């Protein structure tokens, strides 16, 4: 009775009935690939975790070369549950990239980018790019040896881009070398620029998902796809997925606390086996395999141009995949997707072990 009275009071002022009625009518397709739908929600859940733990870390973190490492060390050794917050933030960042990649490939294989969801695909791709930038900028913040030299390698790769490379490298580093200026601007990107952009883009992405609903897989013969109510059925299952993600995240954070390493020393030589985060490993390893000179061209520049073209082609799939747009099966494209996943897995593994 009390709950009903509170509901009515809020409903009179906020119009909750309309939202409730909307949720009652919203439906989600049910089919053999429904499982993949949950990864978009898991990515969102991990983003929220990132925001919450990031805010907690901000209470103690200091973005200067003299204090960054020590402040993170203070967080993990002295602050109550600081180790857990930092470990969750680091693990969650990696799981978020993984969930976003799975979400992207599930959208690709289910051809969910078909008209009228092209903008949803584009906004999702930009969100993935921002997620990778979150990882890249956040990696430097503890100011440890690995982070310092990986950032050097990463910004050098950005510097190899023709025409604008030099400017991009100087812009990212805040000078010619990775210094305190780099740390300050990476911190700015990580806690202000990227969260702002991501929030805006995320709202657009969710609004588009809301507008067009969840995509149904291609079905020959125009047979209708069964559905389930978004609320409470899908929401209950989504919450189960979130709890599952939380269990995985908590286990990783507690059993394998994220290492802090040694404080960065710009005057030592780069440690052997320096490599970027796992999600850049495939590209990094491929660029290492390319000869330094191909005919008269710089091998690294050609490699970066090639990857740039591949990324552009991938991004523009909704425009050139006409067969899927016409509800036809496109086995070649599916094969290409499988090949790309195999390439990413194998080259990431090679990049890690070699």
């Amino acid at each position, binding site marked *: 009775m009390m709950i009903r009275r509170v509901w009515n009071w809020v409903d009179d002022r906020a119009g909750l009935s309309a939202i409730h009625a909307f949720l009652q009518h919203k439906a989600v397709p*049910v089919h053999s690939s429904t499982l993949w739908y949950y990864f978009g929600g898991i990515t969102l859940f991990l983003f929220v975790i990132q925001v919450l733990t990031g805010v907690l870390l901000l209470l103690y973190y200091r973005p200067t070369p003299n204090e960054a490492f020590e402040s993170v*060390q203070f967080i993990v050794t002295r602050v109550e549950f600081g180790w857990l917050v930092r470990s969750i933030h680091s693990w969650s960042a990696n799981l978020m990239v993984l969930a976003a990649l799975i979400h992207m490939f599930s959208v690709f294989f289910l051809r969910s980018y078909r008209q009228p969801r092209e903008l949803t695909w584009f906004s999702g791709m930009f969100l993935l790019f921002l997620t990778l930038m979150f990882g890249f900028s956040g990696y430097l913040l503890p100011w440890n040896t690995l982070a310092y030299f990986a950032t050097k390698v990463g910004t050098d790769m950005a510097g190899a881009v023709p025409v604008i490379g030099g400017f991009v490298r100087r812009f990212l580093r805040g000078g010619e070398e990775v210094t305190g200026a780099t740390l300050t601007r990476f911190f700015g990107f990580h806690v202000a620029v990227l969260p702002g952009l991501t929030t805006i883009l995320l709202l657009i992405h969710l609004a588009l998902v809301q507008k067009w609903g969840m995509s149904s897989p291609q079905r020959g013969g125009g047979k209708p796809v069964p559905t389930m109510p978004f609320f409470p059925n899908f929401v*209950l299952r989504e919450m189960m997925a979130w*709890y599952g993600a939380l*269990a995985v995240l908590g*286990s990783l954070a507690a059993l394998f606390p994220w290492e802090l390493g040694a404080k960065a020393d710009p005057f030592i030589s780069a440690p052997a086996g320096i490599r970027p985060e796992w999600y850049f490993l495939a590209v990094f390893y491929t660029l290492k395999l390319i000869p330094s000179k191909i005919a008269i061209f710089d091998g690294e520049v050609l490699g970066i141009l090639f990857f740039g073209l591949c990324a552009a082609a991938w991004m523009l799939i909704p425009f050139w995949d006409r067969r899927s747009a016409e509800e036809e099966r496109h086995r070649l494209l599916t094969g290409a997707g499988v090949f790309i996943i195999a390439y990413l897995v194998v080259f990431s593994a090679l990049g890690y072990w070699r």
Partner: protein
Amino acid sequence: MTSLSAPMWGGPPGPRRAPWPGHRSGLQPFVALLLTLPALLLAQSPKNSCVECHAALDGAQAKPTQLFDRDIHKKAGLSCQDCHGGDPSTDDMQASMNRARGFLGKIDRRSIPARCGRCHSDAAIIHRFKPQQRVDQLAQYQTSVHAKRLASGDLRAATCIDCHSVHDIREARDAESPVHPLRLPETCARCHADAAHMKGYTIPTDQFDKYRRSVHWEALAQRGDLSAPSCATCHGSHGAAPPGVASVSHVCGTCHVVFENLFAKSPHKKAFDDAGLGACVVCHSNHEVAKPTLALVGVESGAVCVNCHTPGDKGFAAAGRMRSRIEELAASLRSSDEMLQRAERSGMEVSEARLDLATGNESLIKAKVDLHSFDPAVVDASVTKGLTTAQAVHRAGERALSERDYRRRGLALSLVTIAVTMAGLWLAAREVERRRGLP
């Protein structure tokens, strides 16, 4: 010999040379021009008939001219006549090699040190070339065993040229110089490791072999540490002589200052002096100084203490006590290190404890240094300090492992809670779907 006085323009003595390529061809004027140009250029530098004639001779007579291009003295503008006398400005051999006018020819071995010292002992001359160069080499040499033997008529005794080479003398810092720190032991060994050369002397010839097994050689040759001691560091270079018994601790103490100070205050100092024993080398050897280990100390087999001390005497008990105390500290530090490693393998952050452990290891080093006081109380002080640190590190490791277990229990509880919640959500979803008739 008369042919030596022939003008150089007429070509070197001996059979007439075959004409150059291009002879009697149309190229002749150009070739002549090409050959004349360098000659014209050379004509600008002072004439040196010593080089001109000796370069045209064979074998040992020509060798000095071949070597001299690399000699530091040539770079300083000196030439043959500065050591050998004579007049290089004339091609007339009678005039240029006139002993009445100061020509010396080959320098007598006994005169070599004084000949070099003519410039090298004169600050006014030497400082024209190198203001920082020392000028006491001859004075030092005269104190050496080499000089004394030479003065007594032993022509096998080393003079300047035996170490520094002759006609291709280089600066000591030049890596190709025989007295460069990395090459000096081999230069000394050329004579001192040669049993035939050293025959008749009463010193052994195995010093170089022993030195090559020493920690000093390892530092010099393997690590390339140019400051590592070699022959000259202990024996002196120009004043080379074996350090007397009374000097040994001073020689070693040049680098190992703390050890020398501790030893000087120790009961061993007087005992060794009375027994005519040479301080450091009694336990550590001289040329074959091995990396010291704890096995040198104590009352077990292999320890040097038992060479003099016997069960029941005060030193025997002290040796045993010092060894056991240091071993106790080493074991405690090892145990603490293992504890930290376990914590690190579990992902625990123990960098502060690691720093403390480094301090504990410094106490261990200090205790080993304090051994040279041969006073168990001094060693005890360092050991006790180290043990306190090691125990604190051990406790930090235990706390880290305890914290790890606490985290794991917390994780287990969280996972159970999550699993129960997920089961509840699943049941709720099934119930909703059952009511609505969904699959």
